[in-house]
């Protein structure tokens, strides 16, 4: 939001000479597009310091970027030379071959990157990751103490803790969850992976969620909703955060990027904030890995641009993800960048990752699965159909969509 200004050579004048020298770019056009939130803004702003001389940098961050990313990169020349992406967005861009392998650029210009930052497919570097995010457990230590239960490590313990809180009359709806729209699909995916489930027949796009693990996942979700506000199907992250800050909720599996905002001294009381604690996402059904998905965010370089622009963009983006940027914006994300200080609110994400949680799947047909789940399990959670029927519907809806996409 803050850099709507397109920084051009003329506009910056003297100041730019110094900074653009630091990027080592002589010419080219850098056009950055991506979703709009503080961490992306920080990266894009650092990258736009490279403007000057023969280099132009423009930044266009928009909440609806995912809706235009394919069209904007399909055009030739592409509207954006770099599209900021996460697991899911990269999957979509790769399906159409819209982003180029970065191996040559990495060999020439990348220094100081950690090995973990390379997102590779078949040995080709497709994106450079710079931050991580995941849903993990938020809990209220004071409420759990008052209810006489320890911080839960498994979803079974979450249910027991919620029961204890409710029975003691401490809270009416102790659990909250992002069960509305797109998020609902993700909650199922988290829980199903926690159960050790597989979404597809191995090596093919045939669905395979209609099984005992799928049923167990749905039943666990249903049990959780019994301790949630009856409006749970309309809850997104903002609604959960609002309930949390109002002290109405003691347990939730919420995004790591919300950990900072709920402890920032605004919108809540100090009593609630000081007792807000974070830990790894719980495991479920005796499983060993946390029931959550790990997300990375990184930058890509478009295919349909000139080599000159690709090189300029790569260098500018490298300047966007420096250690200085990460240090200066420590509270905005869990940076994967070397030398970045650990974010105090990032313990939950780190604990989930080190607990072995799986990344959000990058399978080409996974988008159709996510959508089908989110749309078809609602009636089960409303109590209007059986779990078996819901899973049957998921598979049927997925098959129709995947057939249209040419995967089946």
């Amino acid at each position, binding site marked *: 939001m803050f850099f709507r200004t397109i920084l051009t050579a003329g506009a910056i004048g003297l100041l730019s000479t110094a900074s653009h020298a630091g990027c080592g770019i002589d010419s080219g056009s850098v056009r950055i597009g991506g979703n709009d939130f503080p961490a992306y803004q920080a990266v894009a702003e650092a990258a736009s310091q490279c403007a000057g001389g023969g280099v132009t940098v423009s930044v266009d961050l928009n909440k609806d970027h995912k809706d235009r990313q394919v069209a904007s990169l399909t055009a030739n020349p592409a509207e954006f030379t770099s599209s900021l992406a996460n697991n899911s967005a990269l999957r979509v861009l790769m399906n159409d071959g819209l982003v180029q392998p970065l191996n040559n650029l990495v060999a020439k210009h990348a220094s100081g990157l950690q090995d973990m930052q390379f997102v590779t497919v078949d040995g080709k570097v497709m994106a450079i990751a710079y931050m991580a995010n995941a849903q993990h457990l938020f809990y209220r230590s004071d409420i759990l103490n008052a209810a006489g239960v320890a911080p839960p490590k498994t979803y079974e313990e979450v249910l027991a803790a919620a029961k204890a809180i409710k029975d003691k009359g401490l809270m009416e709806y102790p659990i909250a969850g992002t069960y509305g729209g*797109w998020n609902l699909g993700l909650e199922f995916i988290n829980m199903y992976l926690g159960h050790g489930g597989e979404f597809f027949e191995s090596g093919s796009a045939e669905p395979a969620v209609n099984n005992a693990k799928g049923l167990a996942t749905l039943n666990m979700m249903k049990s959780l909703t019994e301790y949630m*506000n009856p409006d749970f199907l309309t809850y997104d992250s903002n609604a959960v955060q609002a309930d949390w800050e109002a002290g109405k909720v003691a347990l939730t599996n919420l995004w790591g990027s919300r950990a900072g905002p709920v402890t920032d001294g605004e919108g809540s009381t100090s009593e609630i904030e000081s007792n807000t604690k974070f830990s790894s996402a719980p495991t479920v059904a005796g499983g060993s890995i946390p029931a959550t998905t790990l997300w990375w965010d990184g930058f890509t370089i478009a295919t349909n641009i000139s080599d000159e622009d690709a090189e300029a963009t790569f260098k500018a983006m490298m300047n966007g993800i420096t250690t200085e940027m990460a240090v200066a914006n420590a509270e905005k994300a869990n940076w994967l960048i070397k030398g970045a200080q650990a974010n105090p609110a990032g313990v939950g994400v780190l604990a989930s990752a080190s607990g072995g949680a799986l990344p959000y799947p990058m399978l*080409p047909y996974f988008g159709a699965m996510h959508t089908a789940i989110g749309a078809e399990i609602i009636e089960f959670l409303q109590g209007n159909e059986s779990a078996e029927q819901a899973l049957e519907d998921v598979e049927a809806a997925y098959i129709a969509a995947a057939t249209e996409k040419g995967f089946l």
Partner: protein
Amino acid sequence: MPHYTFLKFIWPSALAMLVFIALPIMSTSVQSLFIEHEKILETVENCTPFGCKEITKVDLEATEAQKAENPLGKFNGFGTYTNRNHLAFSELKQAWRESNGLNEFLAEVFNLPFYKALSFTLSYTFIVTPFVIIIGFFIALAVNRLPSFLKGPTIFVCLLPMIITPLIGSLVLFWMIDAEGIIGSFLQSIFNDPNLSLKASPTLTWIMLFVYGIWHHTPFAFIVFYAGLQTVPRDTLESAMIDGANRWGQTRHVIIPHLMPLAVFISLIQIMDNFRVFEPIIGFNAQASATSLSWLIYNDFRSGDGDMLFGSAAATSMLTIIGVSILMTPVIVRTWRANRPSQGVS
């Protein structure tokens, strides 16, 4: 008017509609007949900040070759229209064969996304439209009876629900009807039920959306009717008065027939707009309980992180257009008849 003169007047408008609406409609109808080429998959290793894993990926070269051969995709005829996510013919047949009794059959039908959406869309259209017309009519009558110094400000306030953007209007109302919000708590105390929540039950969500629709659209009917009332010929009213007609008689025999053409116009626009109901579902986060045809299209475009189902969205769009056309047929026929006498006078 000679054809040539007609063309000179209409071409800018016709060109704009042709390029930006007619062409897209045509390309949409073509698109709805195609699906994407079969994707050739290969298994590769994928490494991320969180470790390495075997995944499948699209073999681009092989897929590109197919694309070059036939850029539109694979011809599928009406396959997309009849698949499970649209008209679902084979699922309907199966449900008909296997279900005992009508209730079970209907339950199966409304479990299918298209019919679920259609049932809400039609209910919304046929509940909101008449209410809008009737309430709008009575507000117009009532405002018309006000002393003239009150008319201006009242008209202004009455128009408020229409002039605000639906995205924002529904956002504010969404908070007000929350169980902790002002309207939500008010309703709880009226019905003496502390657990009452408008957002939790599908039935209440439907009612809430209907009420919002009526609230949002009534000013349109009101302002059109109010203007129409100004044109009611005074002498007709007076002669009705002399004949001893009371207020109701006047309204019934003079005003309503006079306003009939306006009611037709309003219902035309309203049926069309209500059939495309979409914003309130997003604004109220109501997709769990209420979906509409436009929402299905939105879902095809927006739910997959940029992974758009163009064919599916195109098929639903075409079905929407067909649905609107069917609903409008009676009105169109009426307009056709009304227009006939003036034909050929040029």
